């Protein structure tokens, strides 16, 4: 005789399993009683047979045998550690629910985070629990053990001892870890003939070359945009794709917000759409060669000595000349408070020129500073790998240890690494996945995940941080430290000892314990940031040769994909389903073309083209790619995102998109490759989450020019019909009144909020087909509009402004309306107004009529059309947030303003008999936002941050004319436009 709970429902069975392990401490139970209960209930509810309605089996409580110290079951603990991406550290606090890492937050103490994170840090938690991570050692394609590997090592070690490690090569990615560097130094000292190679597909070799050209030594550039009144980006994206991105986003927007509109002016020249160009006050799409020419002409106009007059003819683009003038004027006007950033596709010489220009403008020490390279022993990765591949081909390599990375997949095509690897007698791959390289190598070793290992790493500014494990390795993986130690000596120490030994030597044995505790608590090693050095006068190299692509060919840009990066995140469902900022594409990459270019080539979005190197003849490398047309792409340029077309990523990542690496060549690292496109007649269907970029003149994401704002600072730029009419009684809010303000001035469209929300609220991944059907589940989406500046006021004769269209990003969570249309139409009262003004969605009451979604003007409601939450894969249960119900098929869901976080704060406050303090409740999206564009708080508290934000004259409600009276409001974006360029 069994039972089931009072209300026959099972929306939450996964939460149950998550929660079960949470308060009860024990390990997951693989079989889910709830699932059986649910089936039983379905039977019961459908009155199939009374025999069918057997309830769940007796539930168990599994306490600890020995309770870990400082643990209170049911109360999460946060541990400071570092999320290491491409060698550099991003300080994070990882939430641990009775031993299960469930969520990543930024570490306010850490210079690269200051409390925020990027999308990869958020997604890393899913990677930790990915059931397809490598779980065992493989030797010669056979299942093997660590002992077997150790046994295989012993004879090798003997050989190295004899020949000093000749033929022994180690390949790693970018390394900043002090401990690892120290280990490596010792190792190389021990085996003098061994060599250390580096390969990181996204390593910015050009920056290194540029520093060498300008200063004669490898220096890292430190930007201080917060001090800059004028910022000029020469095809550089300040906000994504490098170690300092999150920090720079915060610095740039420290002075660009609704609170002080026009705090700085941002010019952006971009060959391919990037977030900086999107948020820039003035942006222009130019091919990379044109951008470089413009840079050189600008330099000579600024009088940077050593720059030849008219090194290049004026760019062909009609606006280029005006831009040249405007930039020169703006920069001269703000000497010492200006900042020029070169990046992306610029050739090393031009990036060296950028150093010279900043020096010339007196920005050194003010907005730009230089430190010794943070990367240990900085080398040109492309050259380093090529050298290794050559040696491998010529049989000079006997033993190759690939510690992390996936060169077989992502090495430059002309290095021929994959072929060369077959000639290495003893090759070993250490990796999170048994990926392409893991399969090609003789041995594959499972690597311990970032949150499973002891390590350390430096941030972009040199600050060191300790990496401490959140959980014991799930699959017996080991860290690079441990494997390197294993190479040196059998039965070597574990990672903990290795890292501690190194830092003990640094801190001194006496002070070590305090030092160590402090480093672990803070997540950073105090005072370890690099000191700024005097770079000396930068030399101006001779202008580079900037050949335009042969007629009919296009300039090729290979860019890291905004979601899966270089491909290492290909098996991460959250990232695959994260809409790409500009195309809103999911589960795919595409060859991005400008509209004019596409028209001349007679290509349309969805056409599959064959992209082949222009110079090489027949048999040249080529890839087949579907085309995506983006208006903010420069003409004559095609952008291919990297990281797709994986063959050994796992069930999620395999066969998604096309692989662009075959077109990546060593030459491309220095110059601009040219490619030809030809239609092959096939068409491709994309899965996009937003089909319209035009706002249809509905003025949804509002923009106003600074000139106009200055004309009338107190003026109301977000006029709203002041009407509170409703037939229903008005609500009263005695205690709290939660609200949110979103600053469109500060939203850079990085998607961090979307993925943080997904991690926090157990939002399922639905997959490509479902997205294509329009069934994505994100609770907060980032809409992109191309709006006309000043379109919200119909002032005649503003064609100058009206001409320019700009991209505006608009995050849309639930508006939590006062007069909520959803509440009125729900027949069972599953969505109701609570005493603090939230439109709460009660999953266990929802029958799924979907009328609420029909009636929601903002379309923020999401429906479980099918069983989206994965209830089969048990490791995924462990990742889920125990404080949030996991929804089952057939119920509606939506943003709750992170109700669970409000509740946690409320319980704390109530226990202490006080009110919730301002800033005590921080929603997941607010916490992660690098630019703090999102502010949440109590609207009943006059001094709350959210009220201060809403006080701005720019504050407006979305679709205010519907009188839904949203709690979420937006600050219209003020564009600090340059009259010269109007």
């Amino acid at each position, binding site marked *: 005789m069994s039972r089931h*709970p009072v209300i026959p429902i099972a929306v939450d069975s996964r939460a149950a399993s998550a929660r079960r392990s949470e308060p009860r401490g024990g390990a997951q139970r693989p079989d889910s009683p709830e699932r059986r209960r649910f089936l039983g209930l379905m039977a019961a509810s459908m009155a199939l047979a009374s025999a069918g309605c057997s309830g769940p089996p007796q539930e168990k*409580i599994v306490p600890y045998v020995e309770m870990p110290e400082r643990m209170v079951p049911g109360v999460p603990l946060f541990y400071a550690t570092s999320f290491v991406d491409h060698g550099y550290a991003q300080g994070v606090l990882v939430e641990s629910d009775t031993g299960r890492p469930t969520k990543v937050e930024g570490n306010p103490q850490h210079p690269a985070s200051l409390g925020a994170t990027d999308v990869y840090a958020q997604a890393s938690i899913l990677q930790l629990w990915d059931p397809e991570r490598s779980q065992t050692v493989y030797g010669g394609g056979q299942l093997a053990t660590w002992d077997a590997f150790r046994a295989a090592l012993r004879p090798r070690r003997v050989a190295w001892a004899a020949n000093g490690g000749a033929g022994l090569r180690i390949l790693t990615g970018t390394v900043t870890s002090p401990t690892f560097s120290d280990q490596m130094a010792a190792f190389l000292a021990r085996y003098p003939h061994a060599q250390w190679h580096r390969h990181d597909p996204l390593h910015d070799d050009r920056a290194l070359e540029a520093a060498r050209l300008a200063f004669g030594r490898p220096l890292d550039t430190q930007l201080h945009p917060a001090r800059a009144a004028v910022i000029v980006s020469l095809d550089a994206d300040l906000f994504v794709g490098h170690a300092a991105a999150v920090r720079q986003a915060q610095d740039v927007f420290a002075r660009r917000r609704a609170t002080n509109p026009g705090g700085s002016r941002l010019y952006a020249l971009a060959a391919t759409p990037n977030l900086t160009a999107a948020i820039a006050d003035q942006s222009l799409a130019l091919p990379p060669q044109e951008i470089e020419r413009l840079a050189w002409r600008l330099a000579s106009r600024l009088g940077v000595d050593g720059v030849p007059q008219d090194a290049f003819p004026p760019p062909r683009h009609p606006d280029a000349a005006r831009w040249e003038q405007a930039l020169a004027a703006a920069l001269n006007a703000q000497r010492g408070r200006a900042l020029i950033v070169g990046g992306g596709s610029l050739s090393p010489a031009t990036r060296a020129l950028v150093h010279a220009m900043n020096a010339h403008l007196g920005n050194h020490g003010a907005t730009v500073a230089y430190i010794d390279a943070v990367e240990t022993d900085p080398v040109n990765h492309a050259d380093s790998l090529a050298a290794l591949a050559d040696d491998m081909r010529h049989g000079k390599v006997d033993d190759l240890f690939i510690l992390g990375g996936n060169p077989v997949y992502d090495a430059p095509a002309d290095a021929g690494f994959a072929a060369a690897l077959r000639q290495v007698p003893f090759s070993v791959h250490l990796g999170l996945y048994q990926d392409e390289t893991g399969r090609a190598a003789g041995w594959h070793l499972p690597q311990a995940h970032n949150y499973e290992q002891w390590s350390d790493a430096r941030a972009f500014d040199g600050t060191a941080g300790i990496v401490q494990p959140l959980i014991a390795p799930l699959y017996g993986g080991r860290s690079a430290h441990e494997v390197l130690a294993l190479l040196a000596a059998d039965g070597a120490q574990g990672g903990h000892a290795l890292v501690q030994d190194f830092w003990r030597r640094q801190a001194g044995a006496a002070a070590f314990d305090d030092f160590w505790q402090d480093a672990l608590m803070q997540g950073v090693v105090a005072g370890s940031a690099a000191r700024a050095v005097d770079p000396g006068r930068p030399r101006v190299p001779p202008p580079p040769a900037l050949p335009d692509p042969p007629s009919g060919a296009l300039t090729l840009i290979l860019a890291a994909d905004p979601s899966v990066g270089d491909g290492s995140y290909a098996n991460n469902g959250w990232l695959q389903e994260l809409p790409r900022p500009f195309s809103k594409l999911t589960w795919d990459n595409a060859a991005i073309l400008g509209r004019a270019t596409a028209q001349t080539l007679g290509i349309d979005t969805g056409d599959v083209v064959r992209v082949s190197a222009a110079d090489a003849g027949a048999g040249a490398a080529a890839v087949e790619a579907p085309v995506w047309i983006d208006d903010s792409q420069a003409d004559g340029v095609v952008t291919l995102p990297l990281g797709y077309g994986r063959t050994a990523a796992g069930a999620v990542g395999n066969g998604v998109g096309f692989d662009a690496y075959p077109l990546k060549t060593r030459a491309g690292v220095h110059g601009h490759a040219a490619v030809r496109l030809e239609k092959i007649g096939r068409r491709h269907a994309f899965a996009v989450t937003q089909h319209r970029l035009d706002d249809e003149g509905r003025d949804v994401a509002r923009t106003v020019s600074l000139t106009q704002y200055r004309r009338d600072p107190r003026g109301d730029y977000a006029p709203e019909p002041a009407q509170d009419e409703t037939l229903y009684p008005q609500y009263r809010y005695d205690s709290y009144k939660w609200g949110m303000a979103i600053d469109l001035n500060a939203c850079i469209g990085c998607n961090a909020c979307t993925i943080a929300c997904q991690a926090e609220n157990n939002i399922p991944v639905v997959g490509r087909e479902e997205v294509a059907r329009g069934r994505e589940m994100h609770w907060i989406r980032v809409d992109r509009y191309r709006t006309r500046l000043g379109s919200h006021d119909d002032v005649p004769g503003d064609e100058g402004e009206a001409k320019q269209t700009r991209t505006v990003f608009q995050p849309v969570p639930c508006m939590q309306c006062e007069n909520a249309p959803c509440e009125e139409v729900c027949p069972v009262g599953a969505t109701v107004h609570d005493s603090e003004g939230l439109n709460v969605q009660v999953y266990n009451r929802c029958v799924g009529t979907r009328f609420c979604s029909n009636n929601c003007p903002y379309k923020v409601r999401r429906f479980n059309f099918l069983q989206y939450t994965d209830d089969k894969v048990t490791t995924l249960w462990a990742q889920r947030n125990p404080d949030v119900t996991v929804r089952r098929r057939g119920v509606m869901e939506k943003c709750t303003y992170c109700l669970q976080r409000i509740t946690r704060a409320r319980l704390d406050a109530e226990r202490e008999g006080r009110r919730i303090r301002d800033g005590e409740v921080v929603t997941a999206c607010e916490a992660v936002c690098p630019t703090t564009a999102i502010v949440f708080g109590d609207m009943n508290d006059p001094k709350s941050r959210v009220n201060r934000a809403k006080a701005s004259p720019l504050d407006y409600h979305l679709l205010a004319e519907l009188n839904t009276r949203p709690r979420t409001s937006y600050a219209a974006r003020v564009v600090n436009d340059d009259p010269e360029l109007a």
Partner: protein
Amino acid sequence: MPQAFSPTSILTIKLLILAALLAIVAAILLLEWRMAPAAEEHAAVMQPIMFSHKHHVGDVGLDCRYCHTSVEKSGFAGMPSTQICLTCHSQLFKDAPMLAPLHASMATGKPIQWNRVYDLPDFVYFNHSIHIAKGVACIECHGHVDQMPLMTRQASLNMQWCLRCHTHAQAHVRPLGDVFRMTDMRKLSEQDVVELNRLYHLQDRRRLTDCSTCHR
């Protein structure tokens, strides 16, 4: 022509119709009964170790918090780790066969799996700590634990039951000192109640009956 039905058959038919109606009612009741909670209220639940609250609380007089350590800090009251049991039982009754599973657990490091007595639906987020902090006594829901050789459930745990208190909270609180006491609620005077409410400043009825109070 012959009549379709004889008077007797007509009677039978009528009776059959009546029977059918009764059958339907019976079926509904059966379903209801089959779907009722297995661990009936007041029905003892077997445990791997026949732990007696009557002995530990009633006779020995242990405080609830000695074993349920996190009841004041967390939503989960906390179940004693093997360690906690052994603080006494490494000396007392250490050779009692009944305690074999305990020592086995310590030896093997495998936790003891207790059978849950109070099992709420998983979409309900009950929090012990706040109830304790607001003066809701253990006995309010768990009854006279000190008189239970084996733990039995004292409440239906259905939503109606929760709402009985959430609609009239002030009538169900007692002074903090009495929260862990296993005595029946002593009659509170008017001004006691006023005093307590001032002390606890309980949230109003609307808040306490919001869906969002228990469901997320």
